[in-house]
């Protein structure tokens, strides 16, 4: 009898859960929530139904001995599976995206360490050795009168700089230092933490931009008083970036001259 009434209660609450879920989905669709949020709302409606089913569930029978141990093991497996599945269903950040970025940031810093210098020397010695071996093979196969063509290999370091494209390097620094997390640019990023910078090149000189990056307290953006007072812009770049990286970033920023975007006026502070 109790089982029958519980079964009825389950049916009733599950039906209510589905109805509420469908109503939420329809409401969400009508108010322009994307599909993934509609799914989330439906899941929450079903979770609510499950909770209310559990509230009126009949008392569980006592388990003893092997049955109790078995139930515990199954329970742990279920929980483990649930948590792993839950974490796996959510969108995953691809580490490969970050690895390239880390390589670009850390490579020049590693090169400055003793280990880095040693690694570079070893790599260079290996490269020379390989080239010497290739040359002697060529000599041996072609004879002494043969002309050997030595191809100059460009150094991998500073390839971008060699092309003189400082602005491109500056844009790369913009990405690597994640300036986009606070500043909107080209209509992307930002979230109002810092001013939109599309027209900053018309408002600040190269020296002023450099001063702002090295000492964030030196300039304030109009309308960003609270953020300025709280010291929102990190004062770490003087320690983290090499001078040529800062130069490149400054060159990139000074090239931003889109007057159609209202970049807040910079105010000199100290």
């Amino acid at each position: 009898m109790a089982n029958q009434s519980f079964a009825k209660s389950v049916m009733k609450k599950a039906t209510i859960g589905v109805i509420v879920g469908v109503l939420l989905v329809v409401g969400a669709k009508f108010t322009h929530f994307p599909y993934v949020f509609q799914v989330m709302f439906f899941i929450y409606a079903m979770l609510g139904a499950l909770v209310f089913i559990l509230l009126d569930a009949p008392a569980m029978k006592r388990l003893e001995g092997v049955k109790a141990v078995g139930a515990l093991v199954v329970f742990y497996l279920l929980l483990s599976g649930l948590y792993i599945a839950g974490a796996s269903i959510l969108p995953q950040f691809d580490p490969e995206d970050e690895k390239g970025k880390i390589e670009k940031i850390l490579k020049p810093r590693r090169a400055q360490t003793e280990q880095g210098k040693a690694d570079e020397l070893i790599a260079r010695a290996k490269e020379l050795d390989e080239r010497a071996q290739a040359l002697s093979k060529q000599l041996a196969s072609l004879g002494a009168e043969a002309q050997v063509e030595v191809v100059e290999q460009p150094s991998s370091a500073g390839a971008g700089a060699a092309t003189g494209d400082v602005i491109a390097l500056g844009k790369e620094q913009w990405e690597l230092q994640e300036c986009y997390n606070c500043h909107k640019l080209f209509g992307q990023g930002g979230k109002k933490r810092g001013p939109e910078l599309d027209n900053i090149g018309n408002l600040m000189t190269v020296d002023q931009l450099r001063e702002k990056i090295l000492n964030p307290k030196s300039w304030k953006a109009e309308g960003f008083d609270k953020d300025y007072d709280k010291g929102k812009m990190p004062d770490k770049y003087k320690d983290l970036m090499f001078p040529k990286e800062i130069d490149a970033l400054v060159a990139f920023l000074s090239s931003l001259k889109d007057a159609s975007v209202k970049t807040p006026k910079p105010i000199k502070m100290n």
Partner: protein
Amino acid sequence: MKTLNRSLWIFLVLCLGGVAAAFGQVPDAPPVDFPYAGNRTGVWVVAQLHILFAAFILGAPIFAVVAEWLGYKNNDPKYDRLAKEVIKVTVILYSMTALTGGLFIFVLLGTYPDFSTWLIKHFFLVFAVIYPLLFILETIILYTYFYSWDSMKGAKKGRHIALGILLNIVGTVTLFVIDGPTSFMNTPAKAAEGLSLVEFIQTAGLWDKMANYSWMPLNLHRLVGNVTFGGFIAGLIAAYMFMGSKTDEERSYYDWMGFVGNMIGVGALLLLPFMGYLLAYELCDYDASICPYMMADQLSMFFEMQGAMIGLIFLASNYYIWLSLKRIQGVDQVRISGFVALVVLLMPAIMGYTWKMFPPPEWQSLIVLGALVVLPAILGKIPGLKNFTVSAFTMIKVGFLMIVVADAIWMTPHGFVPTQGLATEEVELPSWAGELALMPAKNAAAFTLVFLTVVNYILYNRAIKRGTIIWGKIDFASQFVLIFLAFSAIWTMGLMGTVRSLTRKYYHVYNLVPDFSPEAFTPTLAYSAWWITGVTIVFYAVVSFAILVTLKAGSPKPVGSPASPIPAEAK
């Protein structure tokens, strides 16, 4: 004899000299490559295990000494037995803490020798003197506290409780001391004017490095977390013992113990979101770029998972109150002002709006908050309105509805993307609903969860004053709820520990010592979840074994017979 002694000493010195000379000619061994998992994951797993055991041995004594004091004050031997059983398990797990701590050092030195040496040199006094001395002191006090339990009874009980308090003081100081280097890795001291961070750290004193931005928030977060942990593990112990009990007396005792463990766990849990918020606030204050990294970038989905876990933990702890209420005879007569139910229903909307307009600590926000908390009590006393009441069960059902709603708000992200860089309209909130993803809405959701849990405990308190508790007759499902709570709390600790470590990005010490190893990237949430689950299971297995060995093997006889239904008020 003297000659023999002298010869032995000379022999020993020669041996040592020989070993030193031999080692002097041997080139440095290369760093270890941790099999299968890699070095970073290897360190992560061992460190996480150590932290879990450490959290237990620091949290459980707080729980135990409070219980012992309650037993002494109320002359109730049940509390004394509870305290002693928890300490029994603590003593066993104490050795596991030391073992995993030693293992952690070895693994760290083997896998990251350069960085480990660097860190040890900067905190040499801490690692070589203060921490070991505190650990030894804590060991002596813990064992004295445990082994003097039976001899320090009656008139000596006060002194025994004082010993327990001393144990907790030393434990807390130990935690604070070791949190220094840990928090330093997240937020190394800010450089003095005119110096670079590297230059400043080279000359900074130990205190400058210890008292960094996140040190005190981390101390508070871990302290409260440890009490929560201790409470839930006491609940776990009770659940195991309840399931294995053969008599009604045993069942009634462990039913009661589970209730107390859950109450302390939940009580501390109520503070935990705010302590976590404080820690996150200080991290962001140190470097504002940490905030978007956590909330909108690589770690954003870790916080989604955290939202889900917190929601489940609140659901489960309130479900346990529900099951506890159901076994109280006369609970049907307990009622509460209907205005409380109304406040709970409206709270997320009102507080979300208020905190948006007046972010705390602005006084207007505190006024509204205070009014919401006090108003139902005032309105409930006004003639004509005081008859507007709802039953305890209705109120709790409204509470459950709002737990689901509050958790949905907590879990609503700005976009379902692993980084905002990939955000498109198809996965982002519509602009009109953007507020749902901001802090005022999240704070309102957290406050609602806390508020209605407190309301549920007030109802429970009223019920036990008016009704009759039948200890031991609780729904058997409640034991699985206790086990669920402990498992989920441990899992969440693992998740949040992962987040704290990952906020250092590709640095061993944020912005100061880069991690040049190939594993310096942010692992995926799914990958992390596998390891967190693995660590939780290993920890659970050891704790379960310790409980069975210490308590089940030598089950003491029950004290008193609380199984018989006794009106709580009469008692």
